[in-house]
């Protein structure tokens, strides 16, 4: 279970203080699939990075399965990201000179998974996100945007995280592949009890999540429940 308590993140910009996340509180049950919608610059990505321990809040706390992130040292936060979090970045953030399969293997390497096991799992994951087998051995910079996005999703799933944070996971995908990815995320949530939080502009994707939040001027409001059937 994830509990977000009065989370605030502020930045200084000249004389001004900006608060992209301003007193956000919510709870997500384990295995739930939720989405956050909002305009560009509304603080969606900042909130996601706070939940994923990529950034530290100015105040407030995130508690994951009873563990407060605010009290953890950097080494523990690294361990949390490695073991409990799967990130799908809006810009994919893949390592360009590595092959697709190597990118997916990276989080497993950091987690100490043996080479043969991580290679097997990386290939399985790339198949799940429907990346052609012949493209699995291609370098990232020789893949299209949609293909890179699928590799990024596969990488996020590599260590079977408790929480997947996805920033526009279907933004670069065609409708059919996007549908497939949504189905994949739904099945992970349903079958593996993985909590999934998606930031999206895609109303159809947001409609398919159990809960949908709207972030506006740093504050979060929950919208009417979507009609996703588990």
């Amino acid at each position, binding site marked *: 279970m994830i509990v977000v308590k009065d989370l605030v993140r502020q930045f200084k910009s000249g004389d001004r203080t900006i608060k992209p996340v301003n007193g956000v509180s919510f709870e997500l049950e384990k295995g739930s699939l939720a989405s956050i919608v909002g305009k560009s610059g509304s603080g969606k990505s900042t909130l996601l*990075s706070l939940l*994923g321990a*990529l*950034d*530290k809040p100015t105040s407030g706390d995130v508690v994951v399965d009873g563990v407060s992130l605010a009290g953890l040292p*950097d*080494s523990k936060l*690294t*361990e949390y*990201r*490695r*073991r409990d*979090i799967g*990130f799908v*970045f809006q810009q994919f*953030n*893949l*390592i360009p*000179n*590595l*092959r697709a399969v*190597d990118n997916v*293997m*990276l*989080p497993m*390497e*950091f*987690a100490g998974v043996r*080479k043969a096991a991580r290679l097997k799992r990386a290939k399985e994951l790339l198949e799940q996100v429907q990346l052609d087998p012949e493209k699995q051995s291609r370098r990232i910079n020789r893949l299209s945007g949609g293909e890179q996005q699928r590799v990024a999703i596969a*990488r996020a799933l590599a*260590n079977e995280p408790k929480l997947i944070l996805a920033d526009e996971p279907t933004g670069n995908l065609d409708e059919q592949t996007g549908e497939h990815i949504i189905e994949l995320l739904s099945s992970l949530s349903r079958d593996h009890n993985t909590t999934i939080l998606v930031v999206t502009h895609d109303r159809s994707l947001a409609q398919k999540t159990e809960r949908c939040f709207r972030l506006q001027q740093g504050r979060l409001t929950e919208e009417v429940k979507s009609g996703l059937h588990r």
Partner: protein
Amino acid sequence: MSVLARSVGNAFRNKIRTAAVVAVLAVAIGLALAMLVANQAVGAKVQELNASVGTTLTVNPAGGQGFEGGGEPLTAAQAQTVASVTNVTSVVGTKALRLQTATAETSTTQQGGGFGPGGQQASVTTNLTAAIDAGTLGNRNGSATNTGGTGTTQRVRTLPIAATGIGAEVDSAGKALDITSGTGLGDYTTAQAKALVGTTLAQKNNLTAGSTFTIQDKTFTVAGIFDAGTAFGNNAVYVTLPEAQTLAATPDELSTMIVTVNSMENVDSTKTAVQSALGTSKADVTQGQRNLETAVSSLDSVKNISLVAFIAALATAGLIILLIMVMLVRERRREIGVLKAIGARNRTIGLQFVLESLVLVALGSVVGAAIASLASGGIASALISSNTSTTAAPTTQRGGGFGGGGFAGGGFAGGGQGGPFGGASQLLTSVSASASPGVIAAGIAAVFAVAIIGALVPALLTARIRPIEVLRGE
């Protein structure tokens, strides 16, 4: 893909840049290694010089050096006196003999006697044939002796063989004998019918270890063959000191004493003390160190210069690596942020960049080692010649101070550059700077250590920041 494979791959991301980096590193590493090789070579030479003669004094009978020497012979009692002088670590007595065939011996006697320090070289007969031809110099010197001779029989142009009784396994200058076959004489303090024979003399007389020959009609067995490194030095025989004294019928008499002092710094004071202990009218004490002082001093300068140059070149290589890694790390801040975001530890990121820099350094070291192996000799020579041109000349003039008297026909006696330690310039040019694997390995290890620090610092500094700061900053 392991962190090592990833690092190797990263090192070749931009091949042109990698080639340029490797070339620059190779020059710096090559220079550093060449300086290290030069430093080691010169250091070894200094050590060798100090060990061989730098701390050695030679004691001759007063007035006993040169062609027309005189004075009283040294005695075993005097050797004991010298041994008790402070800072003296050992005293080795020698007894010089001149071996000639029976015919030549007769002729020489008719010509007026032998040469050497104070006429100390007792002439004894042998069945050995000298390995050196008399040549022009020998014949000229042989003729010159007639002026003081009493006989009328014209000369026999056969050079004598140098035989020396020794109290330890060293040559007449105190340097350890290089025995190339057979064994030494064992106990040098007792008389025994065994001898060490020089290589050329052994060849001339078909001698090997176990062969026999005679001195004064006494049969000697060849225990070993030695190589003195010179034609003159190899036309020689060594027997134990008591044996030589017995052959010369001068028990307790010594031709020279080789005195070893405990350190180079104490040579001057010990020389004075020995001279004082023996009396100026009884013995002349000469100092091998003097011949080499300037040479060693010059070599020390070269050693220091090469050490400073090595450190400077190493620092340059380290700076190059540091700047390159700072550039690479800045260029790949986003990648570091991503690696952190997906759970890489700081040390994993640091290790990746260290390995990447080591790949570059390894390539630079291979090329640099090749450069060093080709250039180290030239660099060492250039350093030596530029640092010794003003100092080598006077030392050359002072060369040849060793060796208590000599035979006709060229040898120790000359005051010029013919002596075994004559000429500092010869010593200087004899420094051979070869790139030994051990020195190269030590140099490369130093470069690798610098590279690790150069790569680790920027990588860890970047890895310590929050991932979002790097990812947002792009």
